[in-house]
């Protein structure tokens, strides 16, 4: 079902995603301030809405410093990778029936592959910086991503079993009777945790951990290269929120309002939830993070997969 021209979908999704990433910076600071009984940025423009613009001007006019000891080519390339991979992931997100750039039949695998490739940005950025804190941050990022990638994929297999397809539009279509968050609640929780870890957001921001590693992998970055990491992170949160919406909360499905509005509302709710988690939870120690991932989340995702498969077989499904 293709109503719109793909170019229009590309332009529209790019426009919304890039602007959302900018607005999110303002939203996050205002929401964090609200939950900490402060005001946040409220001086630039009405309600401080022009704050992202002011930040962008500041970043553009800053000295674009490449340390003399850095590996220049890789150092410049690294921030671009995170933006590219996240934007590529948005290719497969079905915003509403017909509004999707590429309706791949292996869309879910494509998303997992792209989010894994995003690690390269951090590993290369930390490596090229030639700074011990950057290197420590990128080592942590690599270990964390590999560990949480495993059960991120496994936690989604339950959804695939229920929907019988890797195509995201089909997965949304299969949720017409019941959102997958009900039969796959455990899978939803696992994906939520894995998604938090994948976006390197607090409480899983060990790769940057400003209280331990200065700024982790982007210690040496300044100007718009730092801005790319920044924007990439916010687009990553948007991506994970959109994926949760698509996989567990029925995507565009909902009564009354147009499908696009439903999709945006659900995604925004999860974005706010991500910010709330950042406001509330402390960062775990690195060994706690790893043992939690391998000893708790990984077995749980296997149990979830087995139980879902058994249920579908015993109820005479496919």
């Amino acid at each position, binding site marked *: 079902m293709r109503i719109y021209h793909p170019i229009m979908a590309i332009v529209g999704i790019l426009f919304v995603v890039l602007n959302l990433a900018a607005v999110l910076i303002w939203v996050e600071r205002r929401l964090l*301030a*609200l*939950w*900490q*009984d*402060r*005001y946040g940025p409220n001086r630039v423009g009405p309600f401080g809405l022009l704050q992202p613009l002011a930040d962008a001007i500041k970043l553009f006019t800053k000295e674009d410093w490449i340390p003399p000891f850095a590996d220049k080519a890789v150092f410049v390339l690294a921030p671009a990778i995170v933006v590219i991979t996240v934007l590529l992931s948005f290719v497969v997100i079905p915003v509403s029936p017909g509004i999707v750039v590429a309706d791949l039949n292996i869309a879910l695998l494509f998303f997992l592959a792209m989010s894994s490739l995003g690690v390269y940005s951090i590993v290369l950025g930390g490596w090229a910086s030639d700074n011990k804190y950057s290197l420590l941050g990128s080592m942590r990022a690599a270990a964390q991503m590999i560990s949480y990638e495993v059960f991120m994929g496994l936690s989604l297999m339950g959804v695939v079993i229920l929907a019988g397809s890797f195509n995201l539009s089909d997965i949304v279509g299969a949720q017409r009777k019941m959102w997958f968050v009900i039969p796959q609640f455990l899978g939803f929780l696992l994906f939520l945790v894995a998604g938090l870890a994948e976006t390197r957001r607090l409480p899983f921001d060990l790769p940057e951990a400003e209280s331990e590693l200065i700024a982790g992998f982007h210690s040496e970055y300044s100007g718009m290269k730092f801005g790319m990491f920044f924007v990439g992170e916010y687009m990553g949160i948007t991506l994970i929120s959109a994926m949760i919406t698509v996989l567990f909360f029925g995507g565009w499905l909902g009564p009354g309002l147009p499908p696009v509005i439903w999709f945006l509302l659900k995604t925004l709710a999860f974005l706010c939830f991500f910010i*709330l*988690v950042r*406001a*509330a*939870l402390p960062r775990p120690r690195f060994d706690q993070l790893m043992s939690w991932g391998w000893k708790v989340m990984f077995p749980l995702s296997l149990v979830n997969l087995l139980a879902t498969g058994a249920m579908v077989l015993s109820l005479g499904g496919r």
Partner: protein
Amino acid sequence: MLSLLRTAWNVFLHAFQPRVTKQYPEQPAYLAPRWRGRIVLTRDPDGGERCVACYLCAVVCPVDCIALQATEDRHGRRYPEFFRINFSRCIFCGYCEEACPTYAIQLTPDFEMAEHKRQSLVYEKEDLLINGVGKYPGYNFWRVAGVQIGGKCKGQSENEAPPTDLHDLRP
């Protein structure tokens, strides 16, 4: 796990609590009457300068931000030829106010003196002098001091008896 959810919920409830931030330029902060801010030189009720250029403030100043030069007018009344405070050095400790024997130098509840150029923070005597008595409305040093100046002889000050004539035996 439950404690994590409880934490998140408690943080969320803060959305409905009043904010503690004061919107400063619109909502002015309360400053106590004895707040130690911008330094002024006051005048006595007659409108004359209170400062007698005794240098005590410059001596007591721990950061040496006060500079002045004493001189006398035709009545023999001491006053500062120039009086300069470098507010980029001043730490607003208030020692000068404590040291001042004539209540001339006083600290006021005002701190909004930011400048773009450091040199603009050096205040001269005309910037410091105010047309008022400050915290001590009725006080006039030259009227209570037992010092002889032009227009006032010994024994003519307030609370002062005329001087005793040592060459006279009468009671």
